[in-house]
């Protein structure tokens, strides 16, 4: 008997996968009668699922999430374990993932399946009219910033993907003791950020505000990630001719979206959800995730070239994408983002030592 599936997206993932999910329904009318899509901010979702599970009535079948809610759910024990229990449903899963992406699957702790992937950053985006030679190292960035006070901007890491990617990428660039331990191992990073603080006017609380100021010409440079580079230019928030630069020898801090299934679903629904998950990992569906460069590149599995994406998607990426990315992704090392607890601690420390200093 076909079921209704409730899909909740807390990562903005539906922009990449909604068509694929609809396709699944169209192909499997005997399994699924209807799929509802809900979009919600990530932090509140675990609370909602907790409430459902406490009442014994789980009504969410599939959650599309980033690393944040994924980790929260793992900590709160909300997710149904998928691997290895259901490994049979996902033959050759790990082998199938892009090499650079495969490690991101580890973060799921067997409770989620990665569906899309973005190497992310840290990258520098700048206005080529104002910045003739972009910095190549953090030190150059600092001296450029000091020479052009208030012209560099980045957002509070807790509220911004590019902000946190920059934060996590610095230890690798500066050669800190332990890039995974923000409290004990990031001495150089914190010192550097404090230095940098002196030439930054303030930290907006969202990447949107950053891009706006950059686009308007109030600022000349910011940190970014692949998606935030391509998509805003495609949307017209940032002028098309703005460029990105990288630091010499930088390490990609990856980002990914996952499919997870809350505990407490009846077996029949679980089966359907697993079917859906497997379906979304197929190359044809993965090709859809190129989208408009929103989570560039998007696909998590191998052998999904841009040419297999829909024409519209190809056009956008041709116009606003950057050829250099493929090269950088291939050549530079990749690292996983901090795990959740460490991330929260890093945010807190940033707030206390960097952000609060800007209080006026």
């Amino acid at each position, binding site marked *: 008997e076909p079921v209704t599936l409730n899909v909740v997206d807390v990562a903005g993932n539906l922009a990449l996968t909604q068509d694929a999910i609809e396709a699944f329904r169209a192909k499997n009318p005997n399994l699924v009668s209807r799929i509802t899509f809900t979009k919600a901010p990530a932090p509140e979702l675990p609370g909602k699922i907790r409430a459902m599970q406490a009442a014994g009535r789980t009504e969410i079948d599939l959650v599309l999430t980033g690393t944040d809610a994924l980790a929260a759910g793992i900590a709160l024990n909300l997710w149904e374990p998928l691997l290895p229990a259901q490994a049979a449903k996902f033959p050759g899963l790990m082998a199938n993932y892009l090499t650079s992406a495969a490690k991101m699957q580890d973060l799921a702790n067997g409770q989620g399946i990665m569906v899309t992937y973005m190497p992310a950053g840290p990258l520098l985006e700048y206005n080529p009219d104002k910045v003739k030679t972009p910095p190549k190292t953090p030190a150059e960035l600092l001296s450029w910033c000091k020479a052009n006070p208030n012209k560099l901007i980045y957002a509070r890491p807790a509220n911004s993907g590019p902000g946190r990617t920059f934060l996590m990428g610095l230890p690798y660039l500066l050669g800190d003791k332990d890039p995974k331990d923000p409290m004990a191992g990031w001495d150089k990073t914190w010192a550097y950020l404090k230095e940098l603080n002196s030439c930054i006017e303030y*930290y907006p*609380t969202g990447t949107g505000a950053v891009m706006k100021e950059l686009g308007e010409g109030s600022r000349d440079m910011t940190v970014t990630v692949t998606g935030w580079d391509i998509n805003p230019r495609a949307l017209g928030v940032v002028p098309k001719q703005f460029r990105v630069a990288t630091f010499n020898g930088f390490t990609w801090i990856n980002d990914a979206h996952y499919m997870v299934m809350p505990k407490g679903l009846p077996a029949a629904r679980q089966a359907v959800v697993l079917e859906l998950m497997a379906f979304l990992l197929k190359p044809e569906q993965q090709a859809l995730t190129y989208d408009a460069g929103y989570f560039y590149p998007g696909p998590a599995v191998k052998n999904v070239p841009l040419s297999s994406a829909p024409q519209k998607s190809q056009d956008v990426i041709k116009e606003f994408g950057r050829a250099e990315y493929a090269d950088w992704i291939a050549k530079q090392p990749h690292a996983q983002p901090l795990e959740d607890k460490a991330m929260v601690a890093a945010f807190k420390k940033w*707030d206390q030592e960097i952000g609060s200093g800007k209080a006026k």
Partner: protein
Amino acid sequence: MATLIAPVPVTRPRPFFDPAIMLVAPAAAMMVMFFVYPFAYGLLLSFQPAQGGVFENYIHFFQTGDLGKTLGNTMRLALPATVINVSFALAIAYVTRLKGPYQRVLSTLLVVPLTLGTVLIAEGMLTYFGPQGWLAQSLRWLHLYEGSIRLTHNYWGVLISLVITGFPFAYLLILSYITGIDPALPRAAATLGADGWNRFRYIYLPLLTPGLVMAFCLSFVQAFSVFPSAILLGSPAGTTRVIAIAAYEAAFEQYDYSLASAVAMVMGMAQLVIVVAALGLRSLFYRGPVAGGKG
């Protein structure tokens, strides 16, 4: 029904049963059914910290520098915002209370900001006060001020947004409270020699006190729980790190619901102190009908 009624004792009169008291029952029932249990749950939860003793969360709150500071930050925002809102609302409601051709249009205009929502205000302020916003552009164009305007991403941004939403709120309330006062009273005061200020001071103000206090309390509670605009318009790492952010982070970043409940309880208590003080003040003043005699 007759058979159910006990024989009325003839010797001792009893006040007739006042069914009006039952009118509060549905509201009370609703609160008991849907609020008391969840609230008690949250309260208990706040005494079950992830580690440490029963009061660990509270101790943690007051001993951790940046948590404890949020209380002060919130007060610094909420109190001035409330005072500004209520006093401006009072002054403007007083001036616009008279029936006139434009009174209705004007009061409507003044109430409209209520409907904007924090997001619109935040977006609007970021755009309008932004470095390339209309305000900056006009000032530059008029050669009045060339520097950058810093009215967002700091204390002032949050305060302004609290005023934009909070003022219409207080205004709507106070305007309707003010017009409930019998106009015969200020007129009587005028014949006794009270000028505009004295009429306001001795007639309107005391008669308005119950309403003002209520408007103050509600405005304060609203300002105290400021959250989205503190993030969108403030500097949530610094001066506008309000207590709601602390509670939010505890609950939704650290997923420590116990600590979050404790923070929320502290937040509630802080408001309760102010509100109870204000309500206590109210009971010192006259409360009752605001008509002055016959007719």
